[in-house]
């Protein structure tokens, strides 16, 4: 049995390395992205082998799912941009024409002058790219293989420190929840989680600062199948999201997985019905994406004034407070992920 599992481990690791290699060596971006999503799913299996079902859930939902969707929509945008005749002076990020209206695959117009030579270097087709140049191949190889060797040698010398598992187990009874990872994320190391929410928000703000959103370069398939499937899947996704949120207190799950599932549902809706998306008030949207972190900080301030320190709360109130914080975090994360998928800020924000 042990030998069988060991073989499985080796095959999985070889598969991961092989897929990663093929992904990074690819000259076709679409293929690279598909391989990357495969890589994410294989990673989720590896996390299960490492007794980390929470991380496997998160990897499948966030690492492979959301990242994959973002990558694919980026490819679609790039294809659209590069097939559009452009002038060198459009510094203003004007939204490209609606892709549904100009569905014909126009041949890529060659950029002029200096840009042309660079673009020729990069390969003309929108979704292909030049293979790595031969120059410098050996140096890079030696450096990276050397780095891998050093890292492995270092890891081989390490002793097995039990880490903080005993300490966490000792304090579980006052954490307010029954699941170790949730206890760490929302009680013992809640500062990390608060800053992580800030990081998600900041990614959204950064994307918004780059320009207004364009018409989503999605081409809805004609016919009733996709909208029908969305109608079927949307309630299930919402139930799953809420379930994951609630389950986080005692079993694998939690705010980030739930937020990713709800975000994925939102992305699905925006793919199926890109022309019927609601255009929410930008003020509401801004408050929505910051609400999770603001709520978290506001609850944390209690500890600052009542003592002993920021983000402290009485252990008998820990469970309800953690649930409130997680709910806010889930909603903000889901909203931010959908906003990142749609792209830039709402044009109504600038008026």
């Amino acid at each position, binding site marked *: 049995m*042990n030998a069988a599992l*060991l073989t499985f*481990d080796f095959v999985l*690791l070889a598969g991961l*390395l092989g897929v*990663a*290699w093929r992904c*990074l060596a*690819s000259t076709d*971006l679409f293929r*690279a992205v598909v391989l*990357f999503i495969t890589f994410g799913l294989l990673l989720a299996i*590896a996390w299960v*082998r*490492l*007794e*980390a079902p929470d991380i496997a859930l998160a990897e499948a939902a*966030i690492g492979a799912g*959301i*990242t994959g969707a*973002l*990558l694919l929509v980026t490819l679609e*945008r*790039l294809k659209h*941009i*590069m097939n559009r005749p452009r002038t060198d*002076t459009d*510094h203003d990020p004007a939204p490209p024409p609606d892709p549904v209206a100009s569905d014909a695959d126009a041949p890529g117009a060659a950029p002029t002058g200096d*840009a042309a030579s660079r673009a020729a270097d*990069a390969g003309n087709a929108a979704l292909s*790219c030049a293979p*790595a140049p031969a120059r*410098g191949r050996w140096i*890079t190889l030696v450096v990276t*293989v050397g*780095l*891998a060797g050093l*890292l*492995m040698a270092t*890891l081989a010398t390490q002793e*097995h420190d*039990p*880490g*903080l*598992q*005993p300490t*966490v187990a000792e304090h579980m009874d006052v954490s307010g929840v029954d699941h170790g*990872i949730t206890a*760490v994320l929302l009680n013992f190391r809640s500062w990390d*989680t608060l800053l*992580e929410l800030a*990081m*998600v928000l*900041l*990614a959204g703000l*950064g994307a918004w600062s780059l*320009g207004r959103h364009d018409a989503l370069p999605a081409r809805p398939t004609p016919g009733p199948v996709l909208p029908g499937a969305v109608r079927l899947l949307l309630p299930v996704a919402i139930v799953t999201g809420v379930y994951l949120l609630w389950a986080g207190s005692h079993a694998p799950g*939690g705010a980030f997985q739930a937020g990713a599932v709800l975000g994925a549902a939102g992305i699905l809706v925006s793919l199926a019905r890109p022309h019927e998306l609601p255009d929410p008030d930008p003020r509401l949207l801004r408050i929505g994406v910051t609400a999770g972190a603001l709520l978290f900080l506001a609850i944390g301030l209690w500890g600052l004034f009542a003592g002993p320190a920021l983000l402290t709360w009485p252990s008998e109130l820990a469970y309800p407070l953690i649930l409130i914080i997680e709910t806010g975090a889930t909603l903000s994360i889901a909203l931010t*992920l959908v906003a990142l998928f749609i*792209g830039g800020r709402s044009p109504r924000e600038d008026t």
Partner: protein
Amino acid sequence: MIESLDPGTLYPFGGAALFALGLHGLIRRRHLILRILAVNIMGSGVFMVFLGIAARGNAPPDPVAQALTLTGIVVAVSATAFALALTVHLARLTGYAVLLPGPLQTHRDSHPDDR
């Protein structure tokens, strides 16, 4: 020897290899999408080291290292989302999504303001 190769010992080596592989891709490839993928693969390598450390030995897995990995994944996806938005923005301005080495416009005397 075989007995000592529990997943917690084996997988960190894989993580180190993934980190180096990602670095190789980041240095060698010029297209921004591939570079972003390379950074993500490097990140996965780091997470594999973390989770391997969490699973080492016979004790139950270390929840702190697992929680750190979860945080790391969310931070990575945020950074990736912003990097992709920046890539699209760059492509809109220049028509290509490649970072080429060599002098930029700033190093020449001509500047967009002069036109």
